C-alpha cells in the first residue's frame, strides 16, 4: 500500500547500526537470556542497553526495515511450560484444564446418528455451525464440573467382603453424627401399613397409614408440619409441586390438603384411586383407579386434562418415567403399557412377565425400567431404543415394590426384606448378581422411595416408617435453580412463580422429549396424504355445492335440485375431460416399452 513519505526521513539510516540493534528491548516478564536463577527477581532494568535499543525504533516505519524483519531469527514460541509469573515461578498446570471424553459426551445433545434427508444448503450450513458450537459448549460445561463441591458416598467392605452382610447398625456406628441422625425408625403399629413420599427437594416427608393417619414433617430437623386423621382409608399420599400441598387418595375420593392439615379440595371426579403420581414440570397429578381409568388433573388451573380408559381392569401398578413424563402401568396379563395424556391409546405395550406385573420402576435418566412379576422374576429393560430385556433374576419371593435412586441404585421390597442392587458408576445398569445392601424390617413393605439428594432410602411398612442409610445412592451436587433443599421461603416462592410460567402443556408429552428441537423433515404433501389416509377422506377437498337460497319463488325444491344437478354435471364433465387427456399420455408412456414390431406379431393373440 502506498504511504505518504514523511519529511526528514530522506536520509537513509545507517545499515550497520540497524543490523546491530535489531533486537527489541527486553521486558521484565519475558524469558531471561542471561543465566539468572528461576526465583530471583529480574533486577532493575539496564538503562544503557535500552537507550541504544530504543533509538533505531524511529525509522522502523520506513520500507527498508521490512527486509530486516524477514531476515530476523523467528521469535521463539512461548511454550506453555516456560510461562513465568511476575515472581518468576512456573505454572505447574499450564494450559486449559483437561477434560475426559466421557464427560464431554455427557453434555452433547445433538444426536449425530440422525441424518436430515436431502437438506438444503442453508439448513446444512446451519446444522454444521450448530454442531461446532455444541462441541465448544460441551467442553466448557465439562470443565465446569471441577467446581462441584461434593463427592458421592461409597461403601466398601474390607478385603472384598460382601457388602450385603453389612448391617444398618454398623453403618450408623461408622458414619459421622449428622449422617447417623438420618437413620430413624418410627414405630406406628396402630394405624396400619404406611405409604410414604418425599418432596422434590428431599427435605420433607409425607406418609399416610391405611387407617387414616396422615402426617407431613421436615425429616432432617424432625419438625412436624401437620398430623391428622382423615377418618377414612388412605391408599396413597403425594406431595404436589412443593411441600405446601399434599394429595391423599382416600377410600372414596381424592383430597388435597395444606401442609398444616387443612383440607383444601375434594376432587369427586377421581374416585377409588389406588395410586398417585405427580409430574412436576407439567403440574399434572395422575391417578390410577380401581375403575380402570387414568386421570390427569392439572393442579395449577384445577382442570382434568384427560381421563383415559386403560381397558385393562383394576389399575394398581403405576409409575412415571421422569425423563419424558410418560406413565407406566403394569397389568395382570404381564404387560406394561405406556401412556401420554395426548393419546387415547397407549404409546407402547411391553410384554414383561408370564404372570401379572407386581411393580414397575424407571430410573431418572429414562434408560432402564425394572419390573417384577408374580413369576418371581425381576427384569431390567432398555427403554431408549429397543424395549428388550437387559438382565433378569429369579427372586425367592416376588418383589412387591421397586424404586430407583438418582445414581441408578435399585431397591426392591420383598415381604419384610429390602434388597438394594448397585452398578459400577453413576448411571450404569445395576448388576443383579449380588445385592449391595439388605435390610430386614419389622413389617411387610408397603412403600419405597429414595430420598432425592440424600443417601437415604425411606421404607413404609406395616410397622411404621424406616429411614435406611444407603451410601452412594444420591446425587451429591444439586442445582440451586432446580431444587434446592436449603431454600428459604422467598426462594421457594420465586421458584414456584418461574415454574408456573414455564409449565409444559400436557399435549407435548411424548416418548422423545426433545422432539421440538428436531428439524422438520416431513414435507407438506406427505403430511396431507397421511392425513387423508388416516381420516378416510380428504378434509381439504371442496365442500359439496350448496345452492344459495333465492327470493321470489326461485328457491323451490325443484329449482334447487336442478341447480345442484347442473353443477354436478359440469364437474363430471370436467373430470371425464381430464381423464381423457391423461389416457393418451399413459398410452404414450406405455408404447416405448414394447419391443420392436416383428412379422410374427399377427400370430400373437
Amino acid at each position, binding site marked *: 500500500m502506498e504511504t505518504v513519505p514523511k519529511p526528514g526521513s530522506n536520509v537513509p539510516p545507517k545499515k550497520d547500526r540497524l543490523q546491530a540493534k535489531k533486537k527489541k528491548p527486553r521486558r521484565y516478564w519475558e524469558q531471561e537470556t542471561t543465566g539468572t536463577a528461576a526465583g530471583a527477581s529480574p533486577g532493575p532494568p539496564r538503562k544503557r542497553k535500552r537507550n541504544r535499543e530504543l533509538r533505531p525504533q524511529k525509522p522502523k516505519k520506513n520500507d527498508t526495515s521490512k527486509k530486516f524483519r524477514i531476515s530476523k531469527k523467528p521469535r521463539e514460541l512461548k511454550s506453555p511450560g516456560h510461562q513465568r509469573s511476575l515472581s518468576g515461578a512456573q505454572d505447574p498446570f499450564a494450559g486449559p484444564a483437561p477434560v475426559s471424553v466421557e464427560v464431554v459426551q*455427557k*453434555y452433547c*445433545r445433538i444426536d449425530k446418528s440422525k441424518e436430515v434427508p436431502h437438506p438444503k444448503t442453508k439448513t446444512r450450513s446451519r446444522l454444521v455451525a450448530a454442531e461446532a458450537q455444541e462441541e465448544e459448549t460441551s467442553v466448557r*460445561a465439562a470443565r*465446569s464440573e471441577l467446581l*462441584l*463441591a*461434593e*463427592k*458421592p*458416598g*461409597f*461403601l466398601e*467392605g*474390607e478385603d472384598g467382603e460382601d*457388602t450385603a452382610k*453389612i448391617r444398618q447398625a*454398623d*453403618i450408623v*456406628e*461408622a*458414619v*459421622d453424627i449428622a*449422617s447417623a441422625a*438420618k437413620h430413624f425408625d418410627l414405630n406406628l403399629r396402630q394405624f396400619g401399613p404406611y405409604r410414604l413420599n418425599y418432596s422434590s427437594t428431599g427435605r420433607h416427608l409425607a406418609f399416610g397409614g391405611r387407617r387414616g393417619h396422615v402426617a407431613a414433617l421436615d425429616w432432617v430437623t424432625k419438625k412436624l408440619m401437620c398430623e391428622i386423621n382423615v377418618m377414612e382409608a388412605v391408599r396413597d399420599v403425594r406431595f404436589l409441586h412443593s411441600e405446601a400441598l399434599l394429595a391423599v387418595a382416600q377410600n372414596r375420593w381424592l383430597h388435597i390438603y395444606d401442609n398444616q392439615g387443612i383440607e383444601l379440595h375434594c376432587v369427586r371426579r377421581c374416585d377409588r384411586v389406588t395410586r398417585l403420581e405427580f409430574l412436576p*414440570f407439567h403440574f399434572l397429578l395422575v391417578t390410577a383407579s380401581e375403575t380402570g381409568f387414568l386421570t390427569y388433573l392439572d393442579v395449577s388451573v384445577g382442570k382434568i386434562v384427560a381421563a383415559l380408559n386403560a381397558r385393562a381392569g383394576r389399575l394398581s401398578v403405576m409409575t412415571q418415567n*421422569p*425423563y419424558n*413424563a410418560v406413565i407406566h402401568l403394569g397389568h395382570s396379563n404381564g404387560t406394561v403399557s405406556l401412556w401420554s395424556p395426548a393419546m387415547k391409546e397407549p404409546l407402547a405395550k411391553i410384554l414383561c412377565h408370564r404372570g401379572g406385573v407386581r411393580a414397575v420402576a424407571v430410573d*431418572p*435418566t429414562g434408560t432402564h425400567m425394572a419390573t417384577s412379576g408374580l413369576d418371581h422374576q425381576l427384569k431390567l429393560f432398555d427403554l431408549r431404543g429397543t424395549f428388550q430385556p437387559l438382565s433378569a433374576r429369579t427372586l425367592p419371593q416376588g418383589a412387591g415394590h421397586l424404586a430407583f435412586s438418582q445414581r441408578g441404585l435399585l431397591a426392591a421390597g420383598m415381604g419384610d426384606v429390602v434388597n438394594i442392587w448397585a452398578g459400577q458408576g453413576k*448411571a450404569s445398569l445395576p448388576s443383579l448378581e449380588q445385592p449391595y445392601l439388605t435390610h430386614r424390617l419389622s413389617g411387610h413393605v408397603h412403600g419405597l422411595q429414595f430420598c432425592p*439428594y*440424600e*443417601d437415604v432410602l425411606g421404607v413404609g411398612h406395616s410397622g411404621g416408617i424406616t429411614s435406611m442409610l444407603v*451410601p*452412594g445412592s*444420591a*446425587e*451429591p*451436587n*444439586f*442445582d*440451586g*435453580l*432446580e431444587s*434446592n*433443599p*436449603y431454600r428459604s421461603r422467598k*426462594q421457594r416462592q420465586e421458584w414456584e412463580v418461574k415454574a408456573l*410460567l*414455564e409449565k*409444559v*402443556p400436557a399435549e*407435548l408429552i411424548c416418548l422423545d*422429549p*426433545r*422432539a*421440538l428441537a428436531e428439524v*422438520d423433515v416431513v414435507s407438506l404433501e406427505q403430511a396431507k396424504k397421511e392425513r387423508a389416509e388416516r381420516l378416510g377422506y380428504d378434509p381439504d377437498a371442496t365442500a359439496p355445492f350448496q345452492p344459495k337460497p333465492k327470493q321470489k319463488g326461485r328457491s323451490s325444491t325443484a329449482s334447487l335440485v336442478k341447480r345442484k344437478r347442473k353443477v354436478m354435471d359440469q364437474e363430471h364433465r370436467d373430470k371425464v375431460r381430464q381423464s381423457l387427456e391423461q389416457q393418451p399420455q399413459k398410452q404414450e408412456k406405455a408404447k416405448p416399452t414394447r419391443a420392436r414390431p416383428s412379422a410374427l406379431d399377427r400370430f400373437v393373440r
Partner: protein
Amino acid sequence: MCWLRRSLRRRKMKVKMLSRNPDHYVRETKLDLHRVPRNYDPTLHPFEVPREYIRALNATKLERVFAKPFLASLDGHRDGVNCLAKNPKSLATVLSGACDGEAMYTGIDHHWKEAVFATCGQQVDIWDEQRTNPICSMTWGFDSISSVKFNPIETFLLGSCASDRNIVLYDMRQATPLKKVILDMRTNTICWNPMEAFIFTAANEDYNLYTFDMRALDTPVMVHMDHVSAVLDVDYSPTGREFVSASFDKSIRIFPVDKSRSREVYHTKRMQHVICVRWTADSKYIMCGSDEMNIRLWKANASEKLGVLTSREKAATDYNQKLKEKFQYHPHIKRISRHRHLPKSIYSQIQEQRIMKEARRR
C-alpha cells in the same frame, strides 16, 4: 461373651455418607446474597426443550405486549413536511423543511467528507461551498431529476433518480455519469447502504423497493414488497442491516436487507401520507415527516426498553432474544411474532392486491 461377639462383629469397612455442611449452602446474614450452587448435568435438568419452547412463547407474547413504538409528535410546521436531514456529526440535530415556498432545486445532498454538495433539477450540479458556479454538471437523458444522494463510503459516487424512470450513477472525480438502470415506474429516492459500499435501495412508485448491487445493475439483489401505495422515501440504519421506507399509504415499514417482507409496520390514525423518513445515527429511533405538518419520532425496535438497563435486565433481554431466534420457525410462535394490527384501508388494499396478483398469475 456379648462384648466379645460385638468386637468380632465390628467390621473394618470403608464407608462415607453424603453429608453437607449447611453453612456452605445457606447465607450468613440477611444482607448477603443467597447462595445458588450450579450443576449443569443434563439429567438434573429434564424437559429442557419443552421448557425453553414455553419460555420462547412467553417471550414472544411479551414482546407483543410491550411493543409501543410511538414516542413523540413534533409540530410547528405550517405546511406538510417535505424533507428531513440529519447531521452526521451530532445526534441531536435534525433539519426539516416544509412545502411552503418555491423550490428551485428538487433535491439536494451534501458530500460526506468534503465541503461539496450536489443539487438536481434539470441536471445534476456539483457545487463547492465557496463558489457561486457549479464545479461540474452532469446529465444523461432528457427529463428532470428528482433526487440525488452521495455514497457514504466511496464518497465520489452519486446516485440520482429521474422522471423517465431511470436511476443514474455518477462519478464526481471524472465528472461523468457511470451507469444507468431503467425500471418500470419512476423511482422516488434512493439510499446507499452505509456498510456495503456498492448496495443501494430504490423506493419506487410501483409500491416496491429494489435493492441493487452497483456492480451488476441488470437485476436487483432483492425486491421488497409490502407497501400498498407508492413508496416515497427510504433510509438505511447505520448498521446497514435494515432500512425504513415511507409510503403514500400512511405507514412506514422497516425491512431487513436480505428479506423481501417487512418486519415491522408503524401507523397512526393521525399520520397521513408520509413524505420523508430518517433513521437516527444511533440506530435507535426513526423520524418521519408527513403532510399533516407533524414530525413523529418512533422507536426502531418497538418493544425495546429505553434508558440504562441493569445487568440482570440485559441478561434477561439477551436470553429472551436468543430464545425467540431459536424457536422462530415453530408455527405458534411464528404466528404470534408476525401479528400486526393494520388500519382497515391498508388491510383491505392488501387483500385486493393479493386477489389481483393471483388473477394475473393464472
